[in-house]
Structure formats: structure tokens, C-alpha cells
């Protein structure tokens, strides 16, 4: 019976102890009219058969082991050191749950504390929570925090149109029942235009860094302008870019959110990923989700525990600002092991590989007839190419050469028809890039 260990004899002994004759007797409270319905499901399978079927499902997908991936747009193919997976496969980590009992959960608690610490180092913030579901829901939660900080009196939220379109959709979903106004993201303006929207009714302004198009915008005057009207500045970041570029803390951010997937988490068709959320000290009590703090045990030994618990839904119930309970804990562990392995030196080296390879690809593509790379702003590992053909046609030609090409920007931005967002990371070799360039060049 699969994962159920009972022998017939044990079942009989247990039934006798309960005082019934069959297991079915235990369901008397279920309306008899609806009890024990038929289930139309496939026949059971052995472990061998299941694995064979999973393999055939796996083989039906175009994946990064068979194809050179040049697609990013919110999910990134990076190198993951083997040790990350080996740590995640430790049953002591992945078969535990939320560390409600700290005395026997120090492994989870300390590793999340270390994750929080490394996220603070990366983002230049003072505190980070134990995770949200993904980058998009982290941004939606940042809106709630900004509303709380401004005591729900300010109704305007400014979002840059250069924030990942899916993230902006999620913010709209989350806040559809609330009395707030989301502005800015349907325009096509620059940072100056966003700054013009700031007023005394603004709770927050959010930008992406690098933006959805891979570019590093000039945010030097932004923080002062946002803070002048008493609003919060939120950065949506790609953590990989923070290996090289100035931290959002240095640029004046109040909250930093983003997708942690690039740091040790496989593509996995879009999830499970890691929403990180980091914040300035003065707002730390407004943060949602689990947060781990350092303390002492009764022998004076350093130890870790979930703290600021009274903010959470199980205690505050309808007065809680978020309903989050289960988070992405194991993904935070993956990021923690990844950051520990990479460390300062490895992460900087990976950052430079991304920068150099993407710039090499951009320069080579820009030389091709009919293609134009947007080099008007600095970029990290993604950039925009204007193509002489519809992107579907370009990508079909690339697929024949074993390449998964860039993201078609025309589907989200009508003015960017025939524009592709290309991503180059440390896993893309020069040979792959050269095949990509040659294929694009040969396309008539």
C-alpha cells in the first residue's frame, strides 16, 4: 500500500482499541448521502513506473541541458555549485517545518538568520525577512508596508513601467480590494516623469534595478525627491547585479525586494522561487512574514528564534497586514548556501563574467546588418535588440540551432514590436554566443 506501513494484524489491534470493527465506522459524521464517492483517477503505479513516466515527461521539454538558454526576463539560468543541492537534500532540512519549536530547529533558524544577514549585506538594508513567495509578491507586500508606514492616509503608489510586467499585474491583483491608486506603469516615460508624479498623497515609488530591460538607470536624484514628499522608495532588484553595482541602500532605498532565484535555485518552470524582502531599521516592525532574531538560551548560549511574532496572522488574525504563513524557506536555504560558497570573491567573479559575456554578445550583434542593440544606458546581463524580423521567426531559427532565444518584448510593450530582450550569463560560452550571432546574421 505505497507509503502506508500497516499490517492487517496491526489494523485489527488498533480498531479493537478504538472499539470499532472497520475503519469506515469512524466516518459516521459525514453525511451518508455523500460518503465514499467513486474516484475517477488512473490506476496505481510502482516507484519504477512512476520514475519512468516522469522521465518521459521531462524528455518532452526543451531544457537547459539540451539547449543554450539566452532567455531571462525574470528567471535566469546560472551555474549552481553541486554542494547547494547536496545541502538541500538533507532530510533534516527539507522534511522539517516552520521552526515553531526553536530548541530542535536551530539548523533552520541559524541558516535563515545567515540568509537574512547576507541579504542585508547585498542590498545595503538593515533587516530582511525569511522570504515571500517570489519577487512579484514581495513587491505587492512592499505596497502594504508603505501604506502602513504612511498610516493608510496616502493613496497613490507609483510604479515604473520598466518593472517586470508580471510583477505589476500581481500588485494589481493583491490590492484590488483596497482604496489605492496605482500610477505610472502604463506610461512610457523616464525617471523624471515618475518624479513629477510625486506628491503629498504618494505612499511609495518603485523602480527596478537593473530595470526589466536590463538597464541601469540613473537613480541619483530619486531618493531625495521621494523622501522630500514623505514617501518610501522601493527597489526591485536582481541580486546577481548587486555583485558589482552600487547597493540600493547606497542609492537611498527604504525597501528592497526581488527574486532570489538567480542565487542557487533552478529554473524549475517558474517555481518554487524566492521572494526576498529587506528594509531599513526604522520600518522593521512593519515587515510581514517570518523573521529570525538572535537571543540566548537559559544557559547563556547564543541561539535563534522567530521574533516579532505578534505581527503575524496566527496571533493578530484579522488585524494582521498579511496572511503569509508558509513561505519559501528551503529556497532561502539554497540562497544561503549559494552565497556562502560564492562569497565575496566568487560572486564578484560571476558578476564580471555576466557583464563581459553580455557585452561581447551585444557588440557582436550590433555589428550585424538589420540589428541594433540599445546601448543608450549601461546594462548588466540583459539588453534590448531591435530585430529585422518578428521575434517568433527569429526564435524559431535559433531553436533549430539548439538555442532558446530572447524574450519577445512586443507582447508587453506595443512600441517594442520586433524587439527582443536577450540574456547572457556565465553559463553561456563564447562558442554558444558565436553560434547565436552567426544564426542571427544568417537570417534573411
Amino acid at each position, binding site marked *: 500500500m505505497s507509503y*502506508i*506501513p*500497516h499490517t492487517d494484524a496491526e489494523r485489527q489491534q488498533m480498531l479493537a482499541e*478504538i472499539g470499532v470493527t472497520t*475503519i469506515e465506522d469512524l*466516518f*459516521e459524521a*459525514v*453525511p451518508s448521502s*455523500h460518503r465514499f464517492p467513486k474516484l475517477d483517477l488512473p490506476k*496505481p503505479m510502482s516507484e519504477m513506473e512512476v*520514475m519512468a*513516466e516522469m*522521465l518521459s515527461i521531462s524528455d518532452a521539454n526543451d531544457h537547459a*541541458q539540451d539547449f543554450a538558454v539566452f*532567455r531571462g526576463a*525574470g528567471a535566469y539560468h546560472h551555474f549552481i555549485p553541486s*554542494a547547494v543541492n547536496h545541502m538541500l*537534500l*538533507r532530510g533534516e*532540512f527539507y522534511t*522539517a517545518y516552520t521552526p*515553531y519549536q*526553536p*530548541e*530542535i530547529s*536551530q*539548523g*533552520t533558524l541559524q541558516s535563515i*538568520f*545567515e540568509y537574512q544577514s547576507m541579504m*542585508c549585506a547585498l542590498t545595503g538594508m*538593515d533587516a530582511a525577512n525569511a522570504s515571500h*513567495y517570489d519577487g512579484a509578491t514581495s513587491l505587492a507586500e512592499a505596497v502594504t508596508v508603505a501604506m502602513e508606514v504612511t498610516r493608510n492616509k496616502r493613496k497613490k503608489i507609483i510604479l515604473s513601467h520598466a518593472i517586470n510586467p508580471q510583477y505589476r499585474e*500581481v500588485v494589481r*491583483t493583491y490590492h484590488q480590494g483596497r482604496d489605492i491608486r496605482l500610477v505610472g506603469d502604463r506610461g512610457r516615460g523616464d525617471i523624471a516623469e515618475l518624479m513629477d508624479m510625486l506628491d503629498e498623497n504618494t505612499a511609495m515609488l518603485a523602480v527596478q534595478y537593473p530595470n526589466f530591460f536590463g538597464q*541601469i538607470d540613473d537613480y541619483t536624484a530619486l531618493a531625495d525627491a521621494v523622501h522630500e514628499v514623505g514617501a518610501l522608495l522601493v527597489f526591485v532588484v536582481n541580486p546577481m547585479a*548587486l555583485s558589482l553595482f552600487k*547597493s540600493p*541602500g547606497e*542609492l537611498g532605498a527604504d525597501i528592497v525586494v526581488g527574486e532570489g532565484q538567480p542565487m542557487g535555485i533552478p529554473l524549475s518552470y517558474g*517555481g518554487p522561487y524566492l521572494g526576498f524582502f529587506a528594509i531599513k*531599521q526604522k520600518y522593521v516592525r512593519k515587515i510581514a512574514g517570518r523573521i529570525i*532574531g538572535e537571543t540566548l538560551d537559559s544557559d547563556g*548560549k*547564543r541561539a535563534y528564534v522567530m*521574533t516579532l511574532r505578534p505581527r503575524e*496572522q496566527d496571533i493578530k488574525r*484579522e488585524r494582521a497586514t*498579511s496572511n503569509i504563513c508558509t513561505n519559501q524557506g528551503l*529556497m532561502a*536555504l539554497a540562497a544561503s*548556501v549559494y552565497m556562502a*560558497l*560564492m*562569497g*565575496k570573491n566568487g*560572486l*564578484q567573479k560571476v558578476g564580471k563574467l555576466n557583464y563581459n559575456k553580455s557585452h561581447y554578445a551585444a557588440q557582436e550583434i550590433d555589428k550585424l546588418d538589420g540589428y541594433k542593440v540599445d546601448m543608450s544606458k549601461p546594462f548588466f546581463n540583459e539588453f534590448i535588440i531591435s530585430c529585422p524580423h518578428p521575434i517568433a521567426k527569429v526564435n524559431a531559427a535559433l531553436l533549430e540551432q539548439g538555442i532558446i532565444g530572447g524574450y519577445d518584448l512586443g507582447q508587453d510593450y506595443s512600441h517594442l514590436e520586433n524587439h527582443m530582450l536577450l540574456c547572457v550569463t*556565465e553559463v553561456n560560452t563564447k562558442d554558444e554566443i558565436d553560434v547565436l550571432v552567426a544564426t542571427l546574421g544568417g537570417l534573411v
Partner: protein
Amino acid sequence: MSATEPIIYDLGSPGRIGVNLPDCDVPELELPANLMRDDLALPEVGELQVVRHFVKLSQLNYAIDKGFYPLGSCTMKYNPKVNEDAARLPGLAQLHPLTDQEGSQGALFLMYELQKWLAEISGFEAVSLTPAAGAQGEFAGILMIRKYHIDNDDKERDIILVPNSAHGTNPATVSMAGMRVIELPSGSDGNVDLEALQAVCEGENRNKIAGMMITVPSTLGLFEAHILKVIEAVHDCGGLMYMDGANMNALMGVVKPGELGFDVMHYNLHKTFSTPHGGGGPGSGPVGVSAKLKPFLPGPIVDIIEPADDENDAPLYGFVTPEKTIGRLKAFHGNFGMHLRAYAYIRVYGDSGIRDVTRFAVLNANYLRAKLMKTYKVPYPRYCGHEFVMEGHIEGADDIHALDISKRLMDYGFHPPTNYFPLIVPEALLIEPTETEVKADLDAFIDAMEKIAEEARTNPDLLHNAPHTAPVKRLDEVRAAKELVLCCAPALPGGGD
């Protein structure tokens, strides 16, 4: 200050690196100096040091793989190893979420089948797999109920009824959706107080009731005896019924919530369908709905785009967005890594086995209940579902609390039950054994609970000072909240305020 294991930062030395990376095979460029950061305060540690650090940390944890974990309402069942292997197959782990439809037919097929199976198990019309956890599934459900009424031009409905035994996520969800909660009392038998419900449904707020959220079986582990009357009362005043499916492990093959009349519910793949809890997550919280809510489902969902030509051919699967969708809940399409594990899990049990999951989960819970009620007070003398609540209070040992019993259980090698929930039972200990536990381990737990009851009377300090054998003693939680040390990274420019 001593510690069990140093912090990762304390293991490092400047210049050390824990990973082998390739040299750059393209021309190297000068980085734009004005945009660069000055420092990156990450640890500098070698690979073996990192591995030992995390192995040692792992050993400080209790986990299902180590022993019995009867944490009520969390369904800590065995997480099959084959699912972990399957999740790491390259076509599943290394598939980009924006891969073209033709290149992701395997993944889309899997999601389509899982939607179908989940709908079948609970008797619903359609399922969306996008919610990332149970709480997000609840949020999706309440947003759908809200939008359904707005769509019917019934815009005054902003009240959701929630029993006082509910998970905290229920009322928090209602607030997130911009709606209001009316809390309902429970009767002395653990059921919803039907009279109180009817009074609300027929009272001044009758036309403002958007719906009701209810957990079945309740958080007390009890099947709501008047469930059909509860559903009828709410439907009669125009409200919709949301079922919190956290306790589906008590219902599979026993009753289909959709057939009882529920309009929407969420599943917890990390509870009922064995996907690992991961030290706090990830979860996955698909939502199932009746026909009237199908157009409002969060997208995208998987559908057949082109039917198969004949039985040797496969249909073409693709993502679609429901017509009146509440919108997107997260980027991409849900926690696919959890979907595939749940798929493999249902495949193993199949049509004849899924009901056994529930049968044996309920057998194990009732066995523990029958044995433990000889020693402890079990407030509701009825057969339970997959879990039951008892009071962590011992006659003749008045200063012993549920917390003391819990901490002492650690010394006997067990994870404690859920403490102090549900809130309506004093000193609550919520015990959920799950179907994957063998009788001998249940007996060992019963034995430990009996010994603890004895110790409470003869040597109460043994309990007050427990745990004695865990990696650390009881923690100073007040200090943690007061001093608020949340980060140990060296300070950077721009940090602090």
C-alpha cells in the same frame, strides 16, 4: 557567549573562495567605475567549510526523516524520496518558465493532469495551480467570491463569516481582500453554533454577507455534523462557501467538498500531497471551484489548445487566462516543483489507494485519541478525523502547561504537537499522526505521554526545565524581541538609519 555552531561570517578569511569558476573566454571590459559598489560584505569561506557548516546546522534540526512529527494541522507525513529524484530531472528542474508552448508540452501535460485529478478528488469543476501556498489559495478564493458578487452587481457584500476555531490565515485573508470578518462561536460539541449562524444570516447583515470560510474537518479535527445545514444557511442569504482544505487528509475518497455544495476551496500540496515542508516552505495552494466561479480563477491555467487527432496522438496543451480572472497571483505559473511531486504522489496511490491515505490517517489519529484519553482530557468525545485536540493539563499538577509537556516530549525524541491552537481549547495540544506512521512508533509516543503525565506529578521541575537533551535550552524570546538582532553582516555605507 558560547554557541553550538559559529556564524558563517566567523569561518571566513579574506581572499578565500568556495567555488571553482571558469576563466573569462571573451574580451574583458573596464567596469563603469561611477556605478560600482565599494565593498561586498559576504563571507569568504572554502567549500568544505561551507559543507561542514550546513551539515552541522542540519543536525540541530528535528525532521520527519528523524522521527515522529505529530504537528497538528500541518500533516507531517513521509515525503517520498522518488519525488525528490523526479524533481531534479533536467527537463523539469532546468526548464525556463518562458519556454515556448511547443517546448514545454511535458510540463503542461503534467499540470493539466494534476488540475484534473485535484478537481476529481474534491468534486470541483476546475482548478488553478498558481497559488504558492495555502494562504495564497485562501486569498485567491476570497478575491473570487468578492469579484463574483461585484460581477453580479451585488456590490454591498463585504462580510465573510469565520468560525472562532479558524486558522489565523482565514481572518487575515479577509482583511487583505478589503473585506470584513464576522466571527461565529462554536458550540460545546465543537460544531459551528448553528443558531448563531442562522441569526447572522437572517439578521440585518443578510444582504451584506459575501460568504463563509470554514475548515472541514474543523481545526479541532472534527467533521462538522451539520455541514449541509451550514452550507444551506449561507447559500440562502446569497453568500458563497469557502472551504479551507488544510485538512483534506481526512477527506480523500470519503467525501467531495464540491458535492457537499462548497463553491471554492484550496488544497495544500505540502500537507495532503506529500511535498516537503522545507523548514517553512515552499508550499503550494491550488484552488478548486464550482462552475459559477470558474471564470474568476487566477491565471494562467492549463487547457487543451488543440485536441488530439486520434488516440495515438497527444493534444496540444497551453496556458489560458480565465475570462473574468481575479488576476495573476505570482510571476509565472505557480510552484511547479511542488506540482510535479504531487503528481508523482497521486500516481503512486491511484484510484484504489488515495482513499487509503485518509482511512489510515484517520485510523492512526483515533488510535492515539483512544489511548491518550485514558491519561489526558480530550474535550470532544467523538471519533476524530485525521487529528484531535487534547488539553495539556494534568490533574494534580496545576503548574504544568501544554508548553512544558511539549518541551519534555523533545527529551523522549518526539516533535511536540501544535501548541495553543485552536484558541478555543485551553492548553490545546493538537495531534496529527498522519497515515505513514507505524503502530510501534505511535505506541512509543503514547508511552512517552503517559510517563510525562507521571513525571508532572512526581517531578514537575523535570518538565519546567525541559528540554534537557536538545541542542539548546529554552530561549529568551523577550530578549530577541527587545534587542532585535536580525543581521550579523558587517555594516555597509547606506545601511542603518
